[in-house]
Every structure is written in C-alpha cells, then in structure tokens.
C-alpha cells in the first residue's frame, strides 16, 4: 500500500490553493495562482513518472553494482561488488557482438519501415476512395494485431511442417523450401522477425503520412504546375517539406520501438539458434532472468539505456530547438 499513497498528490495541492483564499487583493492572488498552475497540472504526471519509472531506474542502477544471484535474492542480502558487473560485461566479446547486431538490426528495419511506409502512404493518397478504404482496412488490421497473437500467427505461417509459406515457395518452384526450417539459421530467423516488425510497423507510418498529405493545399500543386514543375519536382518542393516534420518524428519513434523490441524477437525463437538472434534487450533478459545473474543483467540494461540515449541525442536536440522556436513564436504573438 505504501506504493499507492506515494503517488497521491492532494497534500501538495493545498498550499497552492491557499494564496487565492488568503490573498487580500484578488489581482495579486491570481498572479500567484497563474505562476504555480502549470506546476500543479504537471505534478501528478511527474510524481507518477518519478515513482514508477524513476525509482525502478535508480534501483536498476544500484543492482548493477551488486553481486546478485539466486542465493542473494532469496536471502535478501546486498553484496556490493563495485564495477565488477560492468568490467565483466564490457570485456565480454559477446556483449559487443550483440550491440553491433542490435544497431544493424535497428538500422535495417527502420530504413525499410520508413521507406515502405512512405511509399504506401503516398500510394493511399493516389488511390480512389474504394481502393483506399480496402487497403486501409488491411493496414489497420495489421497495425492492431496484438504482439503475442501476431508472433503466434507468424510461427504458424512459417512452420516447418504444414506452414503456408513453405508450401507457397515450393509451389513457386523452390522445391528445397518445402521443409525449410526458418528458425534454423541466424539470417532466416532475423528475416521472419524483421518481416513481423515491418508488417506491424508500416501501417503506423503509412496511415499517418497519408493523413498528413491530405492537409497539403491543392493550390500549392497548381502553383507548382504553373511554374512548370514536373511530378518529381512538385513532390520534392511541395510534398516533401510538408511531410518532413512527420517523417522525423516517425523515424525517432521507430528507432526506439525497434531497438527495444522484446516480445517480437523473444517469442519467435527465444534468441536462438545458439543465441545468434539476441538483441540487447533480449540479451539482458536472458543473462539476467534466465541465467539468474541479476546484477549482470542490470548492468547490461543500464548500458542498453545509455546506448539508446546516445542514439536519441540527435533527435532530442531537434526537439529542444523546436521548443525554443515555439517559445519565441508565442512571445511574438503576445507582444
């Protein structure tokens, strides 16, 4: 219960209401109110985030400096061991291989998702209303499919015996594929995982990109055509600038989602064969929970978070610049 009481904000709310009641001059009270109001509105969100995300993060950081295996876990003992978990992990060749693999895996999938998603989004804009509805329904189905259900279905589609993919390939003339074991090699397992990720992620990009194209004023294209712009030029000069902010956000979100994709990678083949398809989150889970080296697992997860932050640094800089621009814009409005 202690967890619950901590997130309740009402206690801190009272002092803020006080100035209004106590303030003799209404104008003064309102000004004080105005200054604290945004913080009050943000308090519940910040408190919840601090308790249920910040605290586990700190705990995770502390665990990463402990020798914590099954024995210590059961006996509730804390054994500090300094940087041992980190030096072990960082001097482990396996860790670096997994890191490189995760980065390549993320890069390939994000590029495919953004390119294919953009092309499908532009296609949606070109289609007639009936065809557009048809394709949208298919996209929404793929988008909405719950992850665990989707991984189950993909395992069935790619099943070695009676799987429909192998049957189709064999019918198309690839006789050797009739009994192909998709989870047998690193590359084929990654192919299935990537296909699953692309299938579930493309609809988000495609549908939102289509929605963004509908906001572009027709006059702009007419003006471009009058100026003698061809199809490619009007795409480059009219469509693309409009879509750029969305594409930037989408790329950012996809990088996060793909890099930390856990159920997709884990459920298809549990990181196999021979742990060759483990990405960083799976590696942390397998080492930590599976191998019961909780301290090491925590250290790997801290390193994963740091890599994620490094990957995001560029985007966060853009966000900050955007915020600055918004603020100056607001100032201009008010002046």
């Amino acid at each position, binding site marked *: 219960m202690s967890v619950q009481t901590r997130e309740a904000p009402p206690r801190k709310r009272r002092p803020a209401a006080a100035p209004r009641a106590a303030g003799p001059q209404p104008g003064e009270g309102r000004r004080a109110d105005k200054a604290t109001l945004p913080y009050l509105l943000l308090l519940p969100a910040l408190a919840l985030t601090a308790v249920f995300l910040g605290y586990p993060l700190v705990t995770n950081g502390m665990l990463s400096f402990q020798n914590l295996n099954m024995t210590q876990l059961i006996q509730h003992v804390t054994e500090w061991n300094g940087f041992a978990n980190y030096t072990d992990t960082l001097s482990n060749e396996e860790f670096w291989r997994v890191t490189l693999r995760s980065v390549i895996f993320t890069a390939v999938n994000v590029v495919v998702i953004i390119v294919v998603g953009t092309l499908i989004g532009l296609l949606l804009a070109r*289609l007639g209303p009936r065809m557009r509805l048809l394709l949208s329904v298919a996209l929404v189905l793929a988008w909405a499919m719950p992850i665990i259900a989707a991984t189950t279905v993909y395992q069935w589609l790619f099943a070695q015996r009676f799987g*429909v993919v192998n049957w189709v390939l064999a019918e198309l003339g690839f006789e050797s594929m009739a009994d192909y074991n998709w989870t047998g090699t690193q590359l084929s397992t990654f192919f299935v995982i990537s296909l699953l990720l692309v299938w579930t992620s493309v609809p988000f990009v495609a549908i939102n990109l289509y929605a963004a194209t509908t*906001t572009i004023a027709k006059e702009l294209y007419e003006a471009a055509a009058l100026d003698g712009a061809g199809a490619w030029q009007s795409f480059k000069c009219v469509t693309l600038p409009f879509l750029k902010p969305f594409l930037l956000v989408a790329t950012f979100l996809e990088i996060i989602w793909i890099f930390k994709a856990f159920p997709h990678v884990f459920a298809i083949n549990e990181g196999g064969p021979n742990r060759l398809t483990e990405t960083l989150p799976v590696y942390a889970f397998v080492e930590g929970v599976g191998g019961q080296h909780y301290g090491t697992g925590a250290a790997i997860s801290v390193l994963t978070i740091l890599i994620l932050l490094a990957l995001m640094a560029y985007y966060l800089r853009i966000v900050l610049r955007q915020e600055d621009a918004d603020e100056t814009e607001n100032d201009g409005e008010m002046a």
Partner: protein
Amino acid sequence: MRRSLLGRIWPNATALVLFVGFAFPVYWMFNTAFKPNGQIISETPVWFPTSPTLDHFETAVEAENFWTLVRNSVTVTVLAVGFSLVVALFAAFALARMRFRGRKGIVLTFMVAQMAPWEVMVIAIYMIVRDADMLNSLVPLTLFYTVMVLPLTIITLRGYVAAVPKDLEESAMVDGCTRLQAFRRVIFPLLAPGLMATSLFGFITAWNEFPLVLILNKDDQAQTLPLWLSKFQTAFGDDWGATMAAASLFAIPILLLFLYLQRKAVAGLTSGAVKG
C-alpha cells in the same frame, strides 16, 4: 492514352497485392481457428474453411481460469488507460498552453521516459514490488501500465491541445468564462476525438504487456491474457487450431476497438496537422 491507363492500373494493382500481404496473416489466423484438424494438417493448404467448426474455440475457452484472466486483463487495461488519460490531460494542457520555467526540461523528460526499456528493468521492478509485498496483485500492474503509456499520451495530447485555436479559449474567457470553464466547455469537446485516438495506444500497450506480468504475477489467478496465450502455445504444442483460436480471441477486442476508433484517430491527427 495508354500511359494514363497504365497510370490508373498500377496503383490499384499494387494496392491489391499490399492488401493481400497485410490482411493475410490475420485472415489465416481466423481461417485456421475455424478449420477442423484434418484441414489444418494437410499437405496442400485449405484456403477457405469449408466445414467450419467451433471445437478449437471450446478448447481455448475451457482452459483453466480463462474468465478470471479475461477479467484481470480488462480491469488492468481499462484502469491504466483511464488514469493515464486524466493525468496526461492536465500535463498536456500545461505544456501546450502555458509558459513557465522548466517547461523544456519537462518535455524532454517525457520524451526520454517514452523510450524507457521496461523489458530490461523487470528485475528492479520485481525487487521493488516484492519488498512492498504486492506480488500477485493487480494494483502494481495497473500503476506500472499507467506510467508505461503516460509519456506518449502526454506528448500526443499536447499536440491535440495545441491544435485547438487559442482564440476560442480566449474569447470564451472574454465572454466571462473562467479558465476552467473555458477548458470544460470549449476545449474538452474539441479534444474528444484526440482523447479517443490517444487511448488506442494505451489500450494496445496494456493489453499486450507481457514481461512484467510474467515476472510479477506467478499465481494463476492473478495473471493476464498474454501469459495465457503464450502458455497455450507451449502446452498444446502443435495444436495450431486451438492456438489460433486462442490468438483470435485475444486479438478480437483490440481489432474491433481499433477499427471503431481508427477513423477518429486519423481525423484527429489530420486536424492536429492542420495547425502546422
């Protein structure tokens, strides 16, 4: 002439191919769920369930504790989404409409919080929940799911709030509304589609969540449907009919909700973009 005909055909042909590609896995799930075993395990695939059966669904539903798990999943998902929407609405309003010191840092905090890799923090979360003596309870699950969906909810809602013209709010206040009244009467109705669209993301996240409940709630009575589905697969091995029936049952609520809310979601996003 020939060119324009070709120009008309290729987008439609591509769309048709894409339609099949995206819809097929979902179709195949339902198709397998309704087929008798003889048609599932056959050398040539049976494309349409010619003699549909509900046997597999019976097997799936008769699994132990099924209805308890349904109740658990619904409770946790609805509460988490509800909490996060309320909390996020306050925060989104402050971030979109007010100027104050530290605003940028807070936006950044939520941006970073959004990419928290919860899957790798399960050990720490387990320790915290165990020390609070709350294992096998739905309360910590609900709270963690709330925070899991909170950052993106705030960021998305902020866009929707910003899309509501400021003039509307200001004129309402000129007409004598307080800020709260202006919010309730003018902004909130305009935000409804945005709230619905945003809730979709939360529903999907909470309904799907797997690693946390796997570690926290070992008790059969306290689990949720994703665990049931993953166990189903291992317990029934190659019974693809029953597994697909279970997957269908798990997917149907989200698919229906999504198809229902999708139009609103895209409409909301469009209006959000207009502000540009």
